[in-house]
């Protein structure tokens, strides 16, 4: 999957789960500090990414990702191009 498509899907899922306008989400946005993800929402977000990309993630690694751009990098590495 191409990076652009991954980025579009990461932003769409993030906007849905964190109830934010997708157009306002930037790559350097921090899930907790900028987008209001508390610990439960962070886990829900990881669960939503698992569903979106049909993956079983290592939850500890996934929960260490802190920004939108970091998530795009994370999935770009995981999903073959």
């Amino acid at each position, binding site marked *: 999957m191409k990076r652009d498509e991954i980025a579009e899907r990461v932003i769409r899922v993030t906007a849905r789960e964190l109830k934010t306008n997708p157009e306002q989400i930037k790559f350097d946005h921090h899930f907790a500090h900028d987008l209001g993800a508390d*610990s*439960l929402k962070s*886990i*829900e977000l*990881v*669960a939503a990414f*698992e569903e979106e990309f049909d993956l079983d*993630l290592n*939850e500890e690694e*996934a929960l260490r990702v802190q920004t939108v751009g970091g998530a795009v990098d994370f999935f770009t590495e995981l999903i073959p191009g």
Partner: protein
Amino acid sequence: MDGRPLQDVQQPNLLKDIFPHTIPPRIRFEDVIEETIDGRVAKFDPRRVIDRDIHVTDTTFRDGQQARPPYTKEQMTRIYAMFSRLGGERGVIRETEFFLYTKNDRATIDACRELGLRYPKITGWIRAEMGDLRLVKEMGLRETGMLTSCSDYHIFHKQKQTRKEAMAAYLRVVEAALESGVRPRCHLEDVTRADLKGFVIPFVQRLERLTEKQPEHMRVKIRLCDTMGFGVSFPNVAEPRSIPKLIWRMKEECGIPGERLEWHGHNDFHKVHVNGATAWIYGADALNTTLFGLGERTGNPPLEGAVMEYIALKGGLCGIDLSVITDLAKYFQKEVRASIPANYPFVGRDFNTTRAGIHAGGLRRNEEIYTIFDTRKLLNRPPRVAITDKSGTDGVALWVNEFLGLKGKERLSLTKVVKIQRWVMDQYEKEGRLTAISEEELEEQVRHYFPELYARAKSRA
């Protein structure tokens, strides 16, 4: 002050010699303990406890019954048999004492004897009266405790005697017991509020002289009864409240060795268990206890706590089967229909249950972080988590995985159970709930989100 440099180790130092987790944590002593007595320093070596024949004695059916409705014969016989299994072949639970006054008491002794168990040995408990001694003889018991109150509160205000009259009355019954082939165990009632030099020591010296020519199995035993829980464990406490000094006086001034010394405490000041353990390490070999600490007023040293302390001091299980403690608790609650507080150590419903999410997270990663030892293996009680708004997704994951019996890679991750956690939080945040989530409610959530795993777990159960 020299600074200590940080040791930034690559592997954790888990101090396994003290916290092996496979057994309760060990207690290690590094040196002698000093106590100033009569202006001189007396030394006690607690390290000797490993080699001494310390043991537990039981008064569940005597002092324990003074705190509750009488047990039936069947209940006492079952509990007696479980004590035997708990204490093992070495007789860590060495003796248990019975009242002799009612038909039920005497029939129970017969029923327990018929089981043919080596331990606990059955002894009696009587007032220091000739009529009571007759009951001991009739039951054919080889040892009996007898009430020999020794504070002036008891001698003057209860018995309306002088010290001389009290001592003479006690000695008469002790002599009669010896003549009948019954070993006397004198219970020095209220000893932590007694005049040690004016009554207790002269009395015990007389007792010792009385039996010094007897064979070993007939020599007087002394039970130090902290009747009102006044005993204190700290070093250099004034008499008569000092447990170290009391034991020292018994041994050094009265010639009673540790093998014939016993501690019996009460919990009026929340000191009951540590006082019992203190008596052990300062030199009394026997610690008198009751199941779950139930006894007159605030109770006695808990038997199950003493067994744990024994393992900690000895550094091994020594033939003890700790799972019997769980069996006793189940029996006690189901058959005896008595309640045990939820937070009561080792047996309460919540003794190894966490409600804090951060603890649940630790438990999920490694059970050793938040468990005192392997409670699953030793007590048949896996660590549990109670689900509230504070238990977090980690708590839900732990609960669900335990409920479903999943192990290793099968265990569900946080992301798999997060929908249940969202339901839990909605209960509190949207519904205004104030109570914990029940097991039935959680089970329903598991059935809803994991129908196949639920069916598998149910069929296994």
